[in-house]
């Protein structure tokens, strides 16, 4: 006889815990989404880290004299205009040798590499790139002096490019 209420109690408890866990499960993607929006921790693919390391050779690039113009919000990830301007005298002694575009979350990290020389006079290039999803775009500029410049731009993507 004493067992009956006990069993009932257990069933009530389990139903309550079930409800709580269901509520938590429903909330958790929302919480994770909010956290990812708030903390701004840059997510980077392994391939990006490898490409970045091989280009910089472990050195830490400096973030100045380089301007990257990308839309803050890209409606179509298949077609994102990018303009890169590096402040450089473009003389024989001091010019931009190479500009690399890397994506942090595309299936392939390397987007493009551009080679410049003093004849360009102004280190400014334009192109159009693909972005699979919302991510950071990293631009590296190698100078003839051996210095490496870097710029990181966050782009929100509505419809991703790069296919399926």
């Amino acid at each position, binding site marked *: 006889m004493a067992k009956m209420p006990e069993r009932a109690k257990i069933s009530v408890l389990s139903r309550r815990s079930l409800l709580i866990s269901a509520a938590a499960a429903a909330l958790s993607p929302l919480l994770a989404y909010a956290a990812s929006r708030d903390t701004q921790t840059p997510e980077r693919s392994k391939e990006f880290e490898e490409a970045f390391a091989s280009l910089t050779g472990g050195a830490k690039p400096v973030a100045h004299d380089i301007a990257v113009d990308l839309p803050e919000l890209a409606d179509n990830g*298949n*077609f*994102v205009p990018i303009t890169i301007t590096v402040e450089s005298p473009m003389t024989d002694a001091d010019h931009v040798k190479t500009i690399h*575009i890397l*994506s942090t979350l*595309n*299936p*392939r990290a*390397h*987007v*493009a*590499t*551009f*080679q*410049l*020389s003093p*004849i*360009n*006079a*102004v*280190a*400014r*290039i*334009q*192109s*159009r*790139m*693909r*972005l699979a999803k919302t991510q950071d775009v990293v631009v590296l500029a190698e100078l003839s002096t051996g210095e490496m410049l870097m710029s990181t731009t966050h782009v929100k993507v509505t419809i991703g*490019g*790069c*296919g*399926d």
Partner: protein
Amino acid sequence: MAARNPRFKLPKNARIGDVIEVKTLIMHPMETGNRHDKYGKLIPRDIITTFVAKYDGSQVFRAEFGTGISANPYVSFKMRVPGPGVFEFAWTDEHGIKTVATAPLILI
């Protein structure tokens, strides 16, 4: 798919010493190799890997493309006009097929 219809835009009245903008475009799907056709079969990667611009025989600009460059790759760059000359733009795909366009720069 072969590249077709190479296009470029040069200024109409440049002078020696001017810094001009050169715009180039070519029609090419730039298949990433990540897309599937309607039967679920993977479409093989097919991209233009290199673009080289020469002015009077010497290289003035070079670009290496990955799959992250949009279809119909567009590139623009700057150049200081060293004197009268002819541009040669060459796009090469990963099968080694080359498309070349030439254009004289009109000076005033």
